[in-house]
């Protein structure tokens, strides 16, 4: 079928790893922010909502540049993380994961927020009268009921992270084996003579992966909501 070269496989494997790590790290933050936006009342909520959605409307190269300034080795956040935890983002695959996570974040938060807003709060009251403390109510009632939204958000974020290009290449460049994802590899192949075939193969991979993520989102979402409407 598709006869990928080792370099192309590396790009595919790297893309999947970056997208998985980005989504896994983004998820707890996504649930927390989604919950704040859906339930909490606080000063500056509109600002937080705007900040979360900013990567969706900003040119990706701007997001990448801001990440470079803040999360670089000498940046305010990047410097702190390096000094205290030895974490390096700049020009590493971890930085690519950070950029992808930030770009996918709005797509993660939105369905989670909508799902949390749609939950019948009276079920949470019922759980409380049955002896569940607020944390148990959240874990045993709120989260399971929000599951279709969480799944949708996770897969959208994953698909977005998989295809991220602009912010990633600005922040961590395009290093084969380290930060060269499928998108970056396609871009590279298109810059060199006779690169068309390699680029074409990766284009097919990108289409297949994106399509699979969308179909999985649809299927899992249906299954999760079917649980509430019978077996």
């Amino acid at each position: 079928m598709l006869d990928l070269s080792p370099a192309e496989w590396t790009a595919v494997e790297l893309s999947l790893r970056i997208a998985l790590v980005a989504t896994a790290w983004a998820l707890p933050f996504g649930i927390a922010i989604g919950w704040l936006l859906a339930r909490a009342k606080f000063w500056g909520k509109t600002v937080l909502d705007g900040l979360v959605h900013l990567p969706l409307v900003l040119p990706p190269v701007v997001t990448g540049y801001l990440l470079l300034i803040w999360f670089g080795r000498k940046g305010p956040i990047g410097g702190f993380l390096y000094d205290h935890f030895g974490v390096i983002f700049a020009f590493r695959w971890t930085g690519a994961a950070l950029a992808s996570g930030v770009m996918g974040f709005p797509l993660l938060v939105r369905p989670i927020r909508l799902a949390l807003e749609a939950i019948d709060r009276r079920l949470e009251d019922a759980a409380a009268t049955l002896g569940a403390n607020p944390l148990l109510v959240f874990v045993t009632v709120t989260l399971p009921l929000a599951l279709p939204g969480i799944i949708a958000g996770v897969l959208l974020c994953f698909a977005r992270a998989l295809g991220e290009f602009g912010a990633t290449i600005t922040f961590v460049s395009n290093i084969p084996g380290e930060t060269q994802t499928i998108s970056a590899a396609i871009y590279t192949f298109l810059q060199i003579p006779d690169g068309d075939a390699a680029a074409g193969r990766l284009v097919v991979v990108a289409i297949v992966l994106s399509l699979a993520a969308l179909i999985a989102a649809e299927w899992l979402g249906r299954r999760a909501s079917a649980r509430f409407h019978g077996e």
Partner: protein
Amino acid sequence: MIVLALEVEKQLGALTLAVRFQIAGGVTALFGPSGAGKTSLVNMIAGLLKPDRGSIVLDDITLFDAAKAVNLPPHRRRIGYVFQEGRLFPHLSVRQNLDYGRRMSGRPRDPTEFERVASLLGIFHLLHRRPRLLSGGERQRVAIGRALLMQPRLLLLDEPLASLDAGHKGEILPYLVRLRDEAAIPMVYVSHIAAEVRQIATSVVRLDDGCVAATGGLELLADAR
């Protein structure tokens, strides 16, 4: 012996709720027209609504006291609550719904008690179903079982028959009467239908426009429909 002593005030929009009564064991009906504040009152007993002033004491335990700034959260009150619309958890099976209270309080399984309640309410054959697949009457029976199995000190029933059609109402009442006669749990039964109250209640608190109009026995229903 006094089980529940309550003296609360609460402003609810245009309605001023100012209520004071005590109940002993048995089934006490909170009887009155819609909008009299019945549901708000049971919500305060359960801890879902905070009174502006007053106190609520259950079995010598202060659940709420505005003056002493005591307000026990609902999960620590151990009061069973059967809601008008059942409020079964849609993502759990009937068995998991019934087991929920026990799991949340970390008590060990008690198969004898589980079987006793399930057979009392006739819900044994439903254990593996999802709430969506139950009829209205079945749903309410499961809701009653779920509240009973948390071993409550007091059981609140807020118009448990209101969401059912006439045929299913008749299906539930005999179970509630059995519950009254077999279980030693004091109950507060909210209703605006005198015929229902006559069948189940042992004493009556009549609410009207946010105030207690009368307390006493079933004779209070003599002129009510």
